[in-house]
């Protein structure tokens, strides 16, 4: 009983951490974007305010059960991936549901949320939502390829499908996988650009064209849930990358530093990019990123 309480407490803390870090990152993203555009920009805590405002909206509407449950789907995905991804090296406090094969598990659970949200978006009957969903799914079929290639390369090279094993490898050897498997890292990072859906891969929710796509009917508290889930998910994904490529982290500060460094990549790439059309982005992912993925597999298989 005590153990369960302990783990629950850990889960809640990790959720809070992920939420605050993630939402801060998003705020920083806006700030940095503004600075790059020669603006003053909102304060770094702007997204907190936004989230609170969204939560304090008095009304919200839904178009049916699936629409109502859509945000829950994505929240569940975010939380479960957070539970599965080890947050700190060898830390017992943060929950760690990891197991052999959790990489494959993560690959699939990560689409559970988007798919559930897509169902919710579909039920709204808003054509923009459905168009956004089709674009999102198409893009997903694009970036999953280099991402999987990178993971498979790692799996081959280190003979494991467990994240903890990969982290241990790095801790023991003292070398980060981003240096020992550079191609895998390259492919994975390129896939990450699509995963975060920042420009140039933001056609999914293009605000001017699609009215924010899948989210176009979500307001108020639904948007609140989605924004928080998004921030948790952002943190979870970054942590995953840090875990498998950058040797994990020993404490939260290092984790934040590493994740933020990693987060700069999609952010800066996004700020300075225009937008791809769907088929262009899909082809982009099947081009160089997949080529690097292939190189990574070759490297893993041959050396």
């Amino acid at each position, binding site marked *: 009983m005590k153990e369960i309480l302990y783990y629950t407490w850990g889960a809640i803390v990790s959720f809070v951490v992920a939420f605050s870090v993630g939402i801060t990152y998003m705020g920083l993203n806006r700030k940095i974007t503004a600075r790059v555009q020669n603006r*003053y*920009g909102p304060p770094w805590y702007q997204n907190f305010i936004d989230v609170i405002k969204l939560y*304090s909206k008095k009304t919200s509407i839904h178009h049916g059960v699936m629409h109502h449950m859509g945000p829950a789907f994505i929240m569940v995905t975010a939380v479960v991936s957070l539970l599965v991804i080890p947050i700190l090296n060898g830390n017992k406090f943060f929950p760690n549901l990891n197991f052999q094969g959790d990489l494959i598990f993560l690959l699939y659970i990560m689409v559970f949320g988007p798919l559930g949200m897509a169902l919710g978006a579909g039920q709204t009957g808003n054509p923009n939502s459905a168009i956004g969903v089709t674009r999102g799914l198409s893009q997903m079929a694009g970036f999953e390829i280099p991402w999987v290639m990178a993971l498979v390369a790692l799996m081959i090279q280190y003979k494991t499908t467990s994240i903890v094993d990969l982290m241990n490898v790095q801790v023991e050897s003292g070398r980060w996988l981003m240096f020992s498997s550079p191609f895998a890292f390259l492919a994975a990072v390129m896939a990450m650009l699509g995963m975060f859906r920042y420009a140039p891969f933001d056609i999914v929710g293009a605000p001017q064209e699609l009215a924010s796509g899948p989210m176009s009917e979500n*307001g108020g508290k639904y948007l609140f849930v989605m924004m928080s889930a998004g921030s948790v998910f952002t943190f979870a994904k970054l942590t995953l990358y840090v875990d498998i490529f950058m040797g994990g982290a020993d404490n939260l500060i290092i984790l934040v530093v590493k994740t933020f460094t990693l987060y700069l990549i999609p952010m800066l790439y996004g700020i300075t990019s225009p937008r791809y059309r769907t088929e262009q982005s899909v082809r982009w992912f099947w081009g160089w990123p997949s080529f690097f993925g292939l190189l990574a597999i070759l490297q893993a298989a041959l050396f």
Partner: protein
Amino acid sequence: MINDKNSQKIVDIIQNFARQHSLWVLAYGTGCGAIELPPTMTSRYDAERLGVRGAATPRQADVLLITGYLTTKTLKRVIRVYEQMQDPKYVIGFGSCTINGGMYWDSYNTIKALDRYMPVDIYINGCMPRPEAVLSGFAKLQKLIQAGKADGAKKYKENLEWYRANQKNVIPNWRMPEYNW
């Protein structure tokens, strides 16, 4: 505990703070005011530092900007959009056209006073108001929100019949879903 008056007050303060500093605007680009918004939002005036940010759909928006004259045809859409927004919601009327018809005072298809048809929280004067005026309008709105006085939506809900009568007077062929908040 939530029903406790003091804590409710604190919650109100936090909520109003958040509402005040996070204004997602839905710019309904009618008339010439639409062209004033790009400078307002971009580098020169940068409304985002006030927390003002564009929203893509009425469902996500807090503030509805009516940027100029409204024909009866657009009025219908504007009302629809306003009713789709989530409470709390605010309306800002831009320019003299929304106030008294402006130069369209004798047009056969342009309304001449926006507040007869929907609750307006702030009017920004001018023909057209410049970005500075717009920003000051936002600041004024923020003050109103902070004071809890920006209750256009409440007014609309309470006086719905009056608004509806006015709207139907202008738009004879009324086929819209019921507003039942």
